[in-house]
């Protein structure tokens, strides 16, 4: 395989929990991201799924150095972004851009569209012909050039997201990290934005990291998908593989939990209901982080030993001690009621 565009190695983001007013002392840490390895390949889309609080947004921001990682490396073009400071870091930012979830709050309400999309160019000292460049960018994202002199609040949600995307591609970045790019939009608008992202990828040879909680959206846009749970990646595979044969119990439950807009399928579906909620990342469970909710949990080993990511088939890695047994049907899931009584005790 080619050399990846971006390599993430052992990335950790721990937020300290502090007590005391005068003499602050650290009493613990929220392990938002706890040792993540990722490879992002040029021209491809990597999807990152997980529930709220699993650390997927923090991971995205740590890669972009909007949050300082506490350990690990983010290697782009031979440089470790995690170690960069000040002006060096600022210069590197033009290669990686972000598309935000809420296009209203991520656009400065006092800037016109023209200022919004040209500001990054000016910040990096790139000379450009103002009108031509603005027109070109707006055309790329499917907005009329008359939009240039308007302000964000005058647009609908979908159009605002287009403005956000225009700003992100203005610097011709290599990598675009899209954090929940469609979840704030109306259903009928989501497809417009997803199609736009795909189209831009083809035209501009962009590489994407798409962070989302919606597995259907992630499957649609991604070549590879990584599933995150409580700060760590539990499974990663090519999109088709992951959805056809999920190996990790968490992925299996997640996929079985999503309602599908097809009553025929829904009526026949077997659901694996997970009990309880995500444990606190300040005090993650011992052993496998998922063992407190796992319907396939086996005594002691799951509680004591953190499973490493293992490659079971080419490109398909999973962090579960019993992935093979679960796949072969040797271990069957417990029902939600059993889980509930077990969890309450």
């Amino acid at each position, binding site marked *: 395989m080619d050399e990846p565009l971006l390599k993430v190695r052992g990335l950790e983001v721990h937020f300290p929990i502090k007590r005391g007013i005068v003499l602050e002392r650290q009493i613990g840490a929220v392990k938002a991201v706890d040792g993540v390895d990722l490879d992002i390949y040029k021209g491809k889309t990597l999807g990152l799924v997980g529930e709220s609080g699993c650390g997927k947004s923090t991971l995205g921001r740590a890669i972009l150095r909007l949050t300082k990682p506490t350990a690990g490396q983010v290697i782009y073009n031979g440089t470790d972004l995690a170690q960069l400071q000040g002006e060096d870091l600022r210069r590197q930012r033009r290669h990686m851009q972000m598309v935000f979830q809420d296009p209203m709050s991520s656009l400065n309400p006092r800037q016109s569209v023209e200022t919004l999309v040209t500001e990054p160019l000016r910040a990096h000292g790139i000379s450009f012909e103002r009108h031509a460049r603005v027109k070109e960018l707006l055309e790329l994202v499917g907005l009329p050039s008359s939009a240039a002199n308007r302000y964000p609040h005058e647009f609908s949600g979908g159009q605002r997201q287009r403005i956000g995307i225009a700003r992100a591609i203005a610097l011709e970045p290599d990598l675009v990290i899209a954090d929940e790019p469609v979840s704030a939009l109306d259903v009928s608008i989501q497809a417009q934005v997803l199609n736009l992202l795909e189209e831009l990828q083809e035209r501009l040879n962009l590489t994407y990291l798409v962070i989302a909680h919606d597995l259907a959206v992630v499957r649609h846009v991604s070549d590879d998908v990584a599933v995150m749970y409580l700060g760590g990646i539990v499974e990663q595979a090519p999109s088709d593989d992951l959805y056809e044969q999920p190996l990790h119990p968490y992925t299996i439950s997640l996929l079985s939990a999503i309602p599908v807009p097809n009553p025929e399928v829904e009526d026949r579906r077997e659901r694996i209901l997970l009990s309880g*909620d995500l444990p606190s990342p300040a005090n993650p469970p011992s052993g496998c982080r998922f063992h407190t909710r796992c319907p396939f949990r086996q005594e002691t080993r799951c509680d004591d030993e953190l499973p490493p990511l293992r490659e079971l088939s080419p490109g398909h890695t999973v962090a579960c001690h019993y992935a093979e047994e679960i796949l072969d049907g040797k271990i069957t899931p417990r029902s939600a009621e059993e889980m509930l009584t077990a969890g309450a005790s």
Partner: protein
Amino acid sequence: MSGDYLSGRPDEGNTTVVGDTDHDGALLEVNDLSVHFTRHGNKPVHAVDEVTFSVGAGENVALVGESGSGKSVTSLAIMGLLPKRGVEVAGSVAFAGRELIGLDESQMRNLRGAEMAMIFQDPMSSLNPVVPVGKQITEVLRRHRRISKPDSVTESVDLLQRVGIPDPARRVTEYPHQLSGGMRQRVLIAIALACQPRLLIADEPTTALDVTIQAQILELLRELVSGTGTALIMITHDLGVVASLCDRVHVMYSGRIVESNLRHQLFARPRHPYTGGLMESIPRLDQARGLPLTPIPGSPTDTLAWSQGCAFAPRCPNAAGDCKTQTPRLEMSDDRALRCFHPLDTEAARIGAARG
């Protein structure tokens, strides 16, 4: 087995009651409901118009639509929760044969909580942050059921147990912020269930929750409807939730119902271009990967006033001249209702549905 999460054992899964098609004497009958917002100085906004539907006991009805479709306003109007000033509610809402429109506030208050209850999208803002959750349940119990204080406490523990909250005896003393989002939504459902209401309205009850928690809550609602015969109105924009839970579906656009049908028929053969467009525009796990999405052009704010024509006409691929000059009527036939001059071709729709 792990790959076939879309299929499963045929003897399990579906626990919903098959919807009865006979609406005579239904529990809730909404007839020609309209809600107009009149702010002085501004033109009145027709938030909801000509909305007619009914819900029987043990039936599960969905109102589907995007922002601005009027689905939430409809539910608030049924519950009598709209502000009195600047709002005109017309039409009829009959609950167990009793007309609710025009009922005074104290009568409405006696009905709410006791006979009909509502759960909202954001459980945090619907719970009082400074009152323990147990007390919020016992308040409802004591007001509507007039039972003694110790009894109401045991009852509230029972209720929390029923909605699947582990260790309910401890949870009753906790405050909303100490609970997770899914727990809060369960508490809200427990409050709604406290007086065994005959009608439950759920306004986007799972939108703010994660998928695994959403599955738990949907399962809870499903059991509730099948087990106690409560009538449920589910308000949502998520077609997946509708497909898994609801018997009958009403699709709303810009304040009016544009299509109604039983669940299976609606998903197999959408007739209104908006319904069809919604189904084409979402990525689906039940279909092969890589199928292109066909978005609906424009945004939900690009509407035509219903008085001029069809509100969906500016975004509709089937729109013809008459769509912009005449208002389509809601044509009823058997189980179906459709408000469209140029519906999707049934054959084409069938092929489209078979695609998956």
